[in-house]
């Protein structure tokens, strides 16, 4: 479904009236962020963050500010995009339930809107907007993160359920989510793209084991899930059985829209907090040194250019100047930007990045550098982004792949080659 960009006269509450109403409510009901990280708010820990997010989202729901661009019949406000943009302006500097932003509001619900049955839309969109259910995506698998269509996780029909077996990985904070969209294989006798289905999976239930993955920086945001004969009611298939690639592709499109800042469902444009933090850290040090100024200047230049790009690509996709796949351009840009910022940070921090006194923020810069490539891996690698840009935006020939035509059963899922020593 598409969202109206600007309001035809009279059809909706007047934008200024809306704005006035929103300002009054926000000032009275939301907490100022102060110096808190917008993506975390005033939460004291991971669990508290869930509690706060759900509570704040419920407040928004009660006040009629939840899901501004979602259809009224599913609990939304059915307003055009410029009301959402106005609300983003108004809530800047206030704590929002950002936990719902991605993937729940910007990726999952839009996909449910696109493919869900009437029952599914009634059931899940409303509950999420009411702040009751957080979602997570079960996409990548240990066998290969990038090749979504190569999923080995299987769902075998057994009476009126599918039995789910296999494993997913790199899901973010799965343990604190309520539901998941899971891409799995329901037919092994057709080519890889034609035997997939997308299931709606209750995260906390018998047969699902979640383990957290320790990141080089010590955090444990990412998870791996193991499925052991998990029964999924057939009515919890999203879209048609074996049409899962179609659904999953839409999922990825919505994800790119979110990344490229063109999603009408985003509560707030992707925060550039990280960047400003970095730069802040840089400014700790020698703006009196011409060489350090070059690095600080470069960081500022790249950051500002990136945000200009995000805006331009968002507009270009909305106006169809570029195809939706162009969302991979800001994705690539974001990866390159963060990598360079992380490097500039340690260049300026000097020895403090590798040996620091307890409490010295410079130490975080060193630790961040260790996980530098994360931003080029998560949510589709930068290599995949370059493939998409050259093939889908510039229209260049696709990479040859020998696993597209044959029944997936016959595809070598490990295509390692012997190393011919020269």
């Amino acid at each position, binding site marked *: 479904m598409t969202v109206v960009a600007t309001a035809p006269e009279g059809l909706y509450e007047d934008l200024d009236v809306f704005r006035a109403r929103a300002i009054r409510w926000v000032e009275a009901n939301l907490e100022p962020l102060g110096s808190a990280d917008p993506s975390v708010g005033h939460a004291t820990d991971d669990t508290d963050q869930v509690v706060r997010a759900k509570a704040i989202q419920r407040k928004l729901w009660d006040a009629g500010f939840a899901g501004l661009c979602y259809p009224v019949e599913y609990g939304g406000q059915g307003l055009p995009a410029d009301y959402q943009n106005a609300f983003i302006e108004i809530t800047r500097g206030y704590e929002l339930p950002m936990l719902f932003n991605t993937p729940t509001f910007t990726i999952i619900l839009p996909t449910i809107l696109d493919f869900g049955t009437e029952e599914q839309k009634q059931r899940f969109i409303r509950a999420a907007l009411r702040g009751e259910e957080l979602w997570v995506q079960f996409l990548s698998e240990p066998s290969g993160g990038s090749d979504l269509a190569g999923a080995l996780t299987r769902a075998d029909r057994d009476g009126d359920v599918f039995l789910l077996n296999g494993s997913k990985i790199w899901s973010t904070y799965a343990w604190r989510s309520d539901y998941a969209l899971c891409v799995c294989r329901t037919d092994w006798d057709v080519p890889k793209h034609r035997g997939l289905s997308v299931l709606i999976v209750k995260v906390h239930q018998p047969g699902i084991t979640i383990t957290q993955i320790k990141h080089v920086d010590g955090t444990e945001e990412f998870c791996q899930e193991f499925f052991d004969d998990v029964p999924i009611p057939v009515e919890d298939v999203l879209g048609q059985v074996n049409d899962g690639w179609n659904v999953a592709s839409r999922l990825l499109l919505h994800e790119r829209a979110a990344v490229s800042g063109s999603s009408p469902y985003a509560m707030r444009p992707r925060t550039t907090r990280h960047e400003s933090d970095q730069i802040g850290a840089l400014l700790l040090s020698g703006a009196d040194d011409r060489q350090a100024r070059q690095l600080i200047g470069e960081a500022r230049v790249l950051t500002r250019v990136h945000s*200009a790009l995000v805006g331009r690509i968002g507009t*270009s996709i909305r*106006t169809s100047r570029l195809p939706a796949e162009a969302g991979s*351009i800001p994705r*690539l840009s974001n990866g390159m930007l963060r990598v360079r910022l992380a490097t500039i940070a340690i260049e300026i921090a000097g020895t403090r990045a590798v040996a620091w006194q307890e409490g010295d923020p410079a130490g975080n810069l060193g630790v961040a550098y260790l996980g530098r490539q994360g931003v080029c891996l998560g949510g589709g690698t930068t290599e995949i982004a370059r493939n998409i840009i*050259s093939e889908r935006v*510039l229209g*260049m020939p696709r990479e040859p792949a020998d696993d597209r035509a044959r029944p997936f059963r016959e595809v070598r899922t490990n295509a390692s080659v012997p190393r011919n020593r020269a």
Partner: protein
Amino acid sequence: MDLELTSDQELLRDTTRGFLTDSMPLSAVRGLAEAPSGFDREWWKKGADLGWTSLLVSEARGGGSISGDGLRDLALVAEEMGAMVSPGPLIPTNVVAQTLSVEGSGDQAERVLPSLLSGDAIAAWCIAEPGRPFDPTGVTLLAEPERDGFVLDGVKLPVEAGGEADWLLVTATGPDGLSQFLVPSSAPGVHVTELRGLDLVRRNAAIRFEGVRVAASDVVGELGGAAPSFERQLQTALVLQCAEIVGAAARVFEFTVQYAFDRSSFGRALASYQALKHRFADMLLWLESAQAITVDATNAVQAGAPDATEVARIAKAYVGERCPELIQDCVQLHGGIGVTWEHDLHLYLRRVVLHRQTYGDPTEHRDRVAMLAS
């Protein structure tokens, strides 16, 4: 480049594009390489008729924009000129015209603006000095007060279109601080030397001012008040430079992508090689980024936004750094033919490198951006 054009702006862009395509194809640009002047006066007048010289001048003083946003309009012209590596003193003439429109005395405006707007006269902005930083602190050319005027002594270099200019806007320093003077290039003591240069048609000169006498009435704007106007002039120049660079880079990228589809190696189209595909993806990223920041800078300067100072420099730092690299990568993808005189690639390279190095290079602007950030 700009995604939000009014129909009037589209008309301006299309007429400029049509005029350049018909009157100044790249073959004609090559033809001017050996000519004494980098551009033809009659041709420039025709461009002036299209608005090239009047967009930054108020209607009261004989100018007028298309959309009400003169700089955004002019940036469209610059973009088209970049795409055609067009000759013509676009930047200096407009910088001087805008200055006279905003700060010039009624007399100065009457004396000079009509001929600049009609294209009959050319003006040069004399600001850069050899080996000096490109900012007010870099100005050492001295304006020594005397009874009823000033005496100018010093050297400006490089001066764009300095060899063709009829009027010179000279920024000088003196007991009263930084001031600007309007000087006819024919004035006694003005010694102009054409410089050798990379661009085939955009020429630069060295101008030595040797005891050049100017009247008090030749001061443009306030005596000692030239610093703020330098900032405005610089922002205008940077926006036009970025627009030209982006126009050039977009054109080169477009025909290089096409080349990758048409040209084959080892029985495969170049466009089928992943290593090249990924480089094209990077180039598209750079190009879209360059266009995005140039539009932001244009709008910020146009609106006189508080961050215009920063955004204009950010744009030059990024566009001036990335686009020459983008074009060099396009040379690489063309193979041997890319470094031959017969291929047009070097015309674009010459233009973007000229812009990269002048009106402050990326290093200078990054430095300034860092200072603004702290």
